[in-house]
């Protein structure tokens, strides 16, 4: 079964045959990122028959991505679809594209506005990094208000939380960490941070940090906030070991990404909620714009997408709880 993926893993082998089609050069910041793998799939689906999509894996290394852009330009890409590793590096890519008059569609990670304004053929498709934090915060606030009497174990009216952070310096990790707490506070809920530590997006590391926190704070922990679902799952596995989620021992856990495993946990009541990034539409919009650009048409030509004043097509995040779990599941259809 593994073999079939070698072609579907990259739209590229198809590309060499379709060399009459206009070429779109694309970079994904990290190929096996669980969310980006969906965006990629949506891109491949949309690209089929329309453009020759050349996909690259930037392996979470901005320098590598810059080099891939050079390669794509050398290979004659008519437009670029760039999922930045590091959003501040957008200018360098724009400079390269501008020199050859190639349009650039940034997607998923947003460059500074000034960069988009500085090149008439630069656009953005995606969300705002902060939005996932905001939505996660709203989700927490709603759930807390509804269950305060049970969940505020020490009845001090304050929400005592531990936070599992992604890789320090990663724009998503930074934004989520900041906005989730800000949002909860902005809803008038008092919070107290018991512990925060990085688990580098990694479930195993999350389990181990959680082991230590459970041992140290035990029932003082009233909420577990994770920058992504992977770490949330890791935390759950530690909590289960400590006897949570059986009987009436419970602590609410939230994540971001809405990966299938997390949906399952939400259904089982072991997770309170997560935030879905709409992969399908991000991928589709990216290819729609890039295709038009490659063909020299107006980027919105024949599509229903709209640009906001920042030359961006916004694909919203959706918060997922047990109530709208089907929305999450549909994303994997």
């Amino acid at each position: 079964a593994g073999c079939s993926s070698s072609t579907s893993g990259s739209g590229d082998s198809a590309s060499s045959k379709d060399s009459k089609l206009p070429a779109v050069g694309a970079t994904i910041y990290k190929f096996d990122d669980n969310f980006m793998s969906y965006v990629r799939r949506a891109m491949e689906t949309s690209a089929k028959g329309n453009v020759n999509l050349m996909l690259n894996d930037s392996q979470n290394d901005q320098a590598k991505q810059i080099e891939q852009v050079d390669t794509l330009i050398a290979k004659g890409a008519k437009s670029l679809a760039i999922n930045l590793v590091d959003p501040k590096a957008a200018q360098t890519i724009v400079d390269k594209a501008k020199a050859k008059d190639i349009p650039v569609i940034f997607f998923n990670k947003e460059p500074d506005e000034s960069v988009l304004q500085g090149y008439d053929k630069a656009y953005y498709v995606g969300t705002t990094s902060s939005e996932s934090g905001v939505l996660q915060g709203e989700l927490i606030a709603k759930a807390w208000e509804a269950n305060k009497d049970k969940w505020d174990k020490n009845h001090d009216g304050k929400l005592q939380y531990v936070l599992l952070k992604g890789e320090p310096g990663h724009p998503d990790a930074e934004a989520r960490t900041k906005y989730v707490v800000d949002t909860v506070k902005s809803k008038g809920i008092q919070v107290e941070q018991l512990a925060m530590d990085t688990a580098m997006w990694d479930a195993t590391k999350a389990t181990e940090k959680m082991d230590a926190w459970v041992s140290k704070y035990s029932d003082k922990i009233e909420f577990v906030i994770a920058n992504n679902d992977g770490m949330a799952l890791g935390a759950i596995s530690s909590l289960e070991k400590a006897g949570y989620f059986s009987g009436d021992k419970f602590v609410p856990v939230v994540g971001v990404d809405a990966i299938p495993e997390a949906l399952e946990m939400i259904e089982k009541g072991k997770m309170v909620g997560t935030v879905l990034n709409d992969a399908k539409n991000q991928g589709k919009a990216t290819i729609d714009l890039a295709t038009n650009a490659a063909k020299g048409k107006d980027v919105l030509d024949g599509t229903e997408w709209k640009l906001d004043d920042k030359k961006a097509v916004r694909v919203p995040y959706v918060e997922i709880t047990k109530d709208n779990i089907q929305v999450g599941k549909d994303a994997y259809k």
Partner: protein
Amino acid sequence: MSTEALKKSGSKDIQKSKSGFSKWIVDNVIYLVLLLLVVGIVVASPDFLSMTNLINILSQASSRVIIALGVAGILILAGTDLSAGRMVGLAAVVSASMLQASDYAYKMYPHLQELPLFVPIIIAMLATGLISAISGVIVAKFHVPPFIATLGMMIVVYGTSSIYFDRPPYGAQPIGGLSEKFTTFAQRGIKLGQYEFPYLIFYAIIVSLIIWVIWNKTQLGKNMYAIGGNPEAAKVSGVNVAKNIIIIYMIAGLLYGFTGVLEAGRVGSATNNTGNMYEMDAIAACVVGGVSLTGGIGTVPGIVTGVLIFQVINYGLAFLGVSPYIQFIVKGLIIIVAVAFDMRKHAKKK
């Protein structure tokens, strides 16, 4: 000079026992380091001293002990293994994909029956055992330096497990929804009074014992030390150097495979990034535990202690709530200082 002359010397006994004791200290400094670390953390936070923390640390150390023992065999051969972490990832992905609960909605093999636990475990271990044996062949027969052979293998294995992992219908999603017998195997334990001692700890103890026996009581073990100590001499002494190297790599691969299975089960899911960089921690723990990177030297208790030192640092700093960045700095410094002390045992007295 000789022992005779020593016997002649008057105050020989005192001298001997004194140098004996200080030598003992110097030779066993890593155990002291471990002790000091624990004492340091306890002083900073007295509630560190609890059974729960002890169990946590031991169980976290367990899978690391197993991978470290695999890596250690190769280090003792004067080799190295950069592919260990990626092998763990491969085994994690393979075993998890075959051990998803039958009612889980996002199964990688939707039509796969639930298999007996041991089948996927064996498959995963055979896969990594075989791949690692190939590394061994590359090292032993084609004389590629282990650094390069295993670096190349690391990249190949990562590519392979990514292809296995990232494919329709669900793409690069963590492989979760593991069957209960799997999570029980890796997450549960033996209840003794109010505490549950995870099976993991027992797996680690059993593996350590087996490896101890192999290293100390079998021809393979002796040959391993001989090859690591002086490969030319080993060859002349009639050791089949290539064969033994390949077997040691294969054993390492089996251990990586087992580690991968445990990691998937322990965390409850697996991705192609599971195990990434574990080899670095494993090698470092081995060196802290007294394994010589130039080969020929290393003991099971030393390695276990090395792993424990790392785990006490990791767990202790998180427990103390040290800020993440400072954790990095402190951890780096402790490693250097611990080994600097340990090095005094090799310091040639001038």
